């Protein structure tokens, strides 16, 4: 009799999927273990306060109005710096993506200046613009500008040339090709760039506020550290984390609304 044996299944694995409830459970287990370790005295409250204590500190910050004051100052700086840096970066990136002269002059300049850690320029900005808001906004704008330039010109480069040729073959005017072909084609990659520059703006605002500011989440976190109030310090970090998540969610919403075709 001819021997027979079953064919074993070999195609499993290498296809990870996200399970929402596992994520929630992982958070709950982490926070629960932290809380229990704090209550059991295994973690000193001076080094790492319990989640409950941090939540209490956060509540106090909300009630006293301090959170609104610090958060408002940081949000203003982020909004002003990011908008300025993104607008200028978008214009420069578009020019590099579209015109040979701008490309020839722009790419070497951007490549040379992009690696400079922008927070190192804050003292120079303070020297030029003073210790007030302008120097912080300018530092954030500089930090946002270069990655935006790169994201935009790379996005324009990635628009399939055949689509541009198609529009040209129908005699579509250049401005309309830019509006109807280049920008919509580049938009998803530009949005990815915005996601990165929003994180850069958040990092820079905290750094700038730690160097010289009266108000702002960065300044609040630094002061809480200096005064040895770790629950306030961590409450500030929770606010920063929520801010980062909020900005990411906002960009995600814009992305879903404007790229339904994908």
């Amino acid at each position, binding site marked *: 009799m001819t021997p027979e044996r079953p064919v074993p299944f070999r195609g499993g694995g290498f296809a990870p999927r996200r399970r929402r409830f596992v994520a929630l459970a992982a958070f709950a287990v982490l926070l629960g273990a932290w809380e229990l370790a704090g209550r059991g005295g295994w973690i000193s409250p001076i080094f790492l306060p319990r989640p409950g204590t941090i939540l209490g500190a956060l509540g106090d910050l909300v009630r006293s109005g301090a959170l609104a004051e610090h958060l408002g100052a940081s949000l203003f700086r982020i909004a002003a710096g990011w908008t300025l840096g993104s607008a200028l970066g978008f214009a420069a990136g578009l020019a590099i993506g579209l015109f040979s002269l701008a490309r020839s002059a722009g790419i070497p300049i951007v490549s040379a200046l992009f690696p400079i850690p922008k927070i190192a320029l804050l003292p120079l900005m303070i020297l030029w613009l003073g210790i007030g808001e302008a120097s912080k906004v300018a530092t954030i704008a500089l930090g946002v500008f270069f990655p935006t330039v790169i994201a935009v010109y790379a996005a324009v480069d990635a628009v399939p040339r055949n689509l541009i040729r198609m529009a040209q*073959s*129908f005699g579509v005017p250049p401005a309309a090709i830019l509006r109807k*072909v280049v920008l919509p084609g580049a938009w998803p990659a530009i949005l990815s760039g915005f996601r990165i520059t929003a994180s850069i703006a958040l990092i820079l605002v905290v750094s700038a506020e730690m160097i010289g500011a009266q108000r702002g989440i960065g300044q609040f976190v630094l002061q809480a550290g200096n005064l040895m109030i770790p629950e306030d310090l961590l409450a500030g970090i929770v606010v920063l984390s929520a801010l980062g998540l909020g900005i990411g969610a906002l960009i995600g919403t814009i992305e879903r609304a404007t790229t339904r*075709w994908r």
Partner: protein
Amino acid sequence: MDLVVSGVGHAYGALPVLEGIDLHVASGEIVAVLGPSGCGKSTLLGIAGGLIEPGAGAVRLRGEAPPRCLNALTYVFQDFALLPWRDVAANVALPLEHHGLGRAEIARRVDVALERIGLAEFRGAWPRQLSGGMRQRVGIARALVVEPAVLLMDEPLSALDAQTRDLLLEDLIALWRATRFTALYVTHNLAEALRLAHRVVVLSRRPGRVREVVEVPFDPDARGTPEANAALARIQERLWGLIRDEARDAEREILAHDA
């Protein structure tokens, strides 16, 4: 309106791809251009449509454009070239949007073009939701909506599977019967050229020169009778002989170059 190509030559840097091409596509005629890979077929089409500046020679349109023509030389692309962020109707509307037509007139013309190509019920679909054949139908509807004088078709069926290709070929023949469009049709598929074209221009290997022009003695919609099939089989054999030799020589050249 006739398309006249006179003495066209072109080189990419030091590499000549076309040399001394003379071609005449008469109104209502479909002329297929066949040749081995790299012989400059697509370059010739690019030059004919004004998308590539010829190194030598010129391309002219002779005669009056059709009365409602908005874009005399209109392409149908191999890869469809649909804008993925526009639905079917908006893709077809694109070439109408810069002619000062009202929204209602654009919508009416789009409806007529989609109806003609059998895609009226898919007007709101995204390109990603369509099959390859349907996408190319959208590409054809977009070309027809401007009522072109000459269609420039760059291997329009080569990205499709054999069955879809046959269906679309039948659609093109039906369309020619209804509208008597004029076309310069680049392909590497001999059967496709013989099914559709009135004349077949065979290009030599690079640099592409006109090696032979073969008349196909039946209108596209009159092919299929035993008499026509026998004549077409003879032409196919002759054309295949020409192309096979050119393709083999081209292959040898590429191998020698790589070595």
